Structures are given as C-alpha cells and as structure tokens.
C-alpha cells in the first residue's frame, strides 16, 4: 500500500487531536468556579497574597498561554493527582483501561459476527419474511437504550433464572480454569448488552451496503460465468460490501464508548467508564478530564486505523 496515503492520514489526524484538546480545554476554562475562591472570603489572607498566588499558578495568564501549559502537561503524561483514589491520574486510568478495551472489543466482535451474516441474508432477498423480521429486530436493537437492556437482562438471568452474577468482581478466589470460567461468566451480560446495541445498527449498514453492491454489473458477470451463487455472494459481493462498513464501524465508536460507560456503570465493571462516573460524582476533576481526553484520543486513533484500512481495502481511495 501507498505510504504517502498513510502519512497524509496521520497528518490529518494531528489537527483534529489538537482541535479536540482545544474544545476540552475551552469547556474547562469556561466552567465557573475559581480555585482561590475560598481565599477571597478568608479575612486572614491579604489580597496581595492572593494575587501573588494567582500569578504564581498562572491563573492571570492569557488563555492561549494557559492552554499551551495545560496541553504540554497532558502530552507529557502529567495529568494531575486523583484526590479520590490517592494516586496519579495516568496510572489510575492505565489500570482501568484494559478492562474497558476488552469489553468493547468482545462486544464489537459479537456485533460483527451477528450482524454481517444477518445483514447479508436480509439483503439477498429484500422484502422477504426473513428480511422483514431481521429489519424489525435491528430496529428494536437500535432503539433499546443500553441501560434498559442491561436491567432487563439482570432481571431475567440473575434474578429470575439465577444463572449469571450481576455484579462484576475483580477479586475472584479461584485458580486455573475456574478463574477464567468465572471471568467469562460475569462478562457475558455486559458484552451482550453492548454487542446487541451495536448489532442493530450494523445489520442496517450491512444490508444497505450489500444491496448497493449486488446490483452492480460485475456481480452479473460473475454469475454469468457460472460461478455458484454462494461463491458469488461470499467472494464477490460481501468482500466489496464490507468496505464502507469499516468506516461506519469507526464512525460508530463515540457511541460505543458512550454505551460502554452506561454498561460498566450498570454491571459495576471496573473500567474507565465507571471510573468516569465515580469521579464526576466525587468532583474529581483531573480524573474526569483525563478520561475524556483518553476516550477522545482513542476515537481519533481508531478513525485513523479505519481510514488506513479503508485505503488498503479499496486502493482507489489512496490515490485520490
């Protein structure tokens, strides 16, 4: 693949990362509240001292200077200290991030492995009974809010049937296979909730993408050459129909992270989503900013990966 294309994409990603950091800093800078508010009402501290303190911490600097200061600290990994957890924010987030990435990854795999066959089968026979059922279920999956699906699953599988635990535990006292078995068992519900929400959207994407491709002349050519219908669909249609879906999956990522926050909160999965909510409720600003920044970076990173994949799957793109 063409190296220029990759470099160009990376160069496009950098300004958007900078733009996101400007937006985040802007939100923080516009927020009301002054860290030295208490000192202003304290009669024991003369105003000159307060002014000196403000000057020392750079609060009176122009906005762009404060932004540069903040941004260089973020880039260097100096994200502040969490007063709630009594540790550095970057270490805290790194500790929680793997769980979130595993849950999101597993749910995406589930969503893709359900949605692609269903979407393809629905598009092969449009307006058939299977298509109508699949489209209706996709619509239902797409309309179900994750927090409600999660509660219904808890109600059915934990409370009524008592099959699965509804609180995610990090400290399982078991070893070997039993340890992994318990981990898988407690991950089923969060992964299914997040995966189903995604699958609904993906089925719709996949169906319309296959419908676009299946009408093209090269498919007719493949059929008239006597290639079996199955092979035409799998080797010729689906391969090309997947190309736009890759981008759509990447564009869905902000929504996936949102869903992960809710899901982690419901099942008390110790990832960055539940950490974000806990930090917000405890007024732990450095953690809130850190997590929002990390999620934004991840979204930009995955968009970049999708762009590069897109160029690899469809070489015409990279020569534009």
């Amino acid at each position, binding site marked *: 693949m063409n190296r220029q294309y990759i470099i160009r994409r990376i160069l496009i990603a950098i*300004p*958007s990362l900078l*733009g*996101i950091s400007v*937006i*985040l800093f802007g*939100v*923080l800078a516009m*927020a*009301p*509240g002054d860290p030295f508010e208490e000192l202003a009402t304290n009669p024991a501290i003369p105003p000159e001292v307060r002014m000196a303190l403000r000057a020392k911490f750079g609060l009176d600097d122009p906005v762009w200077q404060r932004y540069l200061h903040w941004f260089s600290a973020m880039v260097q990994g100096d994200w502040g200290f969490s007063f709630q957890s009594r540790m550095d924010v970057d270490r805290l987030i790194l500790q929680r991030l793997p769980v979130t990435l595993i849950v999101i990854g597993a749910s995406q795999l589930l969503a893709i492995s359900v949605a692609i066959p269903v979407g393809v089968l629905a598009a092969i026979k449009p307006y058939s009974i299977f298509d109508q059922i699949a489209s*209706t279920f996709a*619509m*239902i999956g*797409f*309309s*179900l*809010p*994750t*927090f*409600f699906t999660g*509660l*219904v699953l*808890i*109600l059915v599988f934990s*409370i009524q049937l008592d099959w699965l635990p509804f609180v995610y535990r990090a400290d399982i006292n078991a070893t070997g296979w039993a340890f992994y078995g318990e981990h898988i068992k407690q991950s089923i519900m969060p992964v299914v909730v997040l995966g189903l929400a995604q699958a609904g959207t993906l089925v719709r994407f996949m169906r319309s993408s296959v419908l676009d491709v299946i009408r093209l002349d090269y498919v007719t050519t493949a059929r008239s050459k006597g290639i079996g219908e199955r092979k035409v669909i799998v080797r010729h249609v689906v391969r090309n129909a997947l190309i736009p879906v890759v981008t759509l999956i990447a*564009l869905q*990522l*902000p*929504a996936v*992270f*949102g869903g992960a*926050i*809710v899901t982690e*909160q*419901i099942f008390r999965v110790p990832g960055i989503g539940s950490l*974000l*909510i806990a930090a*917000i*409720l405890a007024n732990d600003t450095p953690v*809130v*900013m850190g*997590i*929002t920044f990390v*999620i*934004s970076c991840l*979204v*930009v990173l995955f*968009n970049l990966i999708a762009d590069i994949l897109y160029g690899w799957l469809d070489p015409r793109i990279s020569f534009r």
Partner: protein
Amino acid sequence: MAGSTPVSLSADAPASPQLAVQPRKARSISPALETWRRFRRHTLAVTGAIVLLILVSGVLLGPYVWPVAINDIDFAAKLQGPSLAHPLGTDDLGQDLLARMMYGGRISLAVGFAAMLVALTVGVLVGSVAGMASGWLDAALMWLTDLFLALPTLPLLLLVMYLFRDSMKKVLGVEGGAFVLIVVVIGGLRWMPVARLVRAQFLSLREKEFVEAARALGASKVRQVVQHILPNALGPVIVVGTIDVAAAIIFESTLSFLGLGFPSDVPTWGSMLRDAKDYLDIAAHWALFPGGAIFLTVLAINFIGDGLRDAFDPRRVL
C-alpha cells in the same frame, strides 16, 4: 437513438393510446400529499405515528384525568405492583408511578423536540453556509464538522453537565437550568449529520436549472437559499430530525440514569430507572414501566423516521 428504449414513452410515440388518456388521469398532486400517500402505505410507520400520538396525548392530557400528585408519599403503600388505586404501582416512597410517568414523559418529549430543533438549526445553518460558499470557508466548516463527529458525545455531555450544572441552576432555577443545559448540549453535539446532509444537498441543488433561472432573474443569495434551495433540501433533513428526537430522548434518559441529568427530585423516565435498579428483585414493575416507555417512544419515532425516509425518496417504488 429513437426506438432504442422501448420501455419509456418518449416523444416519438405521441399517438399511443396511453398518452391520449393521460390528461384526464393526471390530476395535480402536491408533493406533500404525495409524501403522505407514500407514508400511509408504510404500516410500521403508521403504527409508530399512532403509538407516538397516544403517548404524547397521554402525557399531556393524562394529568387532567389522573390528578394524583407526583410527590404524594404514602409509606403504607410502598413498592406495590399495579392495582386499581395505583394503575402502574408505587415506588419505595409509595409515590404513584402513573403520575410520575406522565410528568417524566413531558420532560423527555420536550427535551427530545427542543434538542432536535437546536440540532437542526445549527446543522442547517452550518450546512447551507458551507454548501453555498465554496473554498476555504467550506473547507473550514467541514473540518469543524468532522472534528465534532470524532468527539465522544456521552463523556463530553457528562463533562459539561458536571462543570456547568451548578451555575446554570443559579441562573435559571433547578428545572429550567437543567433543561436548557441538556437541550443546548445535546443539540450542540448532534448537528453534524444534518450539516453534512444539507451541504451535500446544496452542492447538487445549487447547480440545478431552476436555481440558475432564479440567479439569472437577479435573486439574491439569501433568496436563492430560502426560496429555492432549502425547500428542496428539506426532505432528508426532516428524516434526520425525526431520528434526532429519538437520540435526544435516549441521551437525556442516559444522563438522568447516571444521576447527571435533572435533579433527583424531578421524576424523569431515566431517573426513575436509576432509582428502581436497586429494587429489581422485589419491584420489577418500577423499572419495567419507565424503561418500556422510553423504548416504545424511541421505537415509534424511529419507525416514523423510516417511513418518512421511504416517503421522501421519489425514486423508490413501494
């Protein structure tokens, strides 16, 4: 060329019997009526519209039929299932769930529509400016749109709610502050698809002959947009707007569910679910009614959007 396409009735067959009948059959049908006719044939969309109508009228008129206070505490009747005295049961303080559901529904629907209006206004504005002005302004606006598309909506929404909630409360009161903040932020994070859509429509429409004719007659840029281009670009925008209502309702419920939406004493569907989730084992009805209401509303709106999408697409044969 003549006779190469036998399917279409072209100018070379003026004497054909079908064409002779045409003038009598072709009654003028306005585009709106045509759209309505197409929409009517979409069974699920019509069902969605009826369900939404019932929900909206129930939420708006219900309190007159069922005048029970939303904060009438009765510990003797706490966590009861549906009964005649409380058709949807009660919560942990013995408050009537039907009354609270109707109150919460008003908030959810109001937030949904208001946030949709904000998103459409911003999106149409950005999209039409970008679509009319080619060059650097277009490029800059589209870069901004793509940037906003890459923002993680929910974390940012939570961040803004967290940072601004208290000061908005002081300015606009408890409920008003939360309402304005939620609507502006949800609308402000959902305008991007509208902007891209409007720009794409503008790029093709502004080159069409009827716009050129208007331009030749000396119509100003604003008049070209408002009178000629925008009305023709509106169909897809309405579809996206419909789906935005559903998305805004889900976002508001999510915020309330996470405890960062409306203050906890204001019953919304999301906050009722949050309170109910600790009582799932003994009072499942408490979670199922508001959750079901959110689901039903969102599903109905999404089906309406689907039906409108098909109805506005003139190429589609139903």
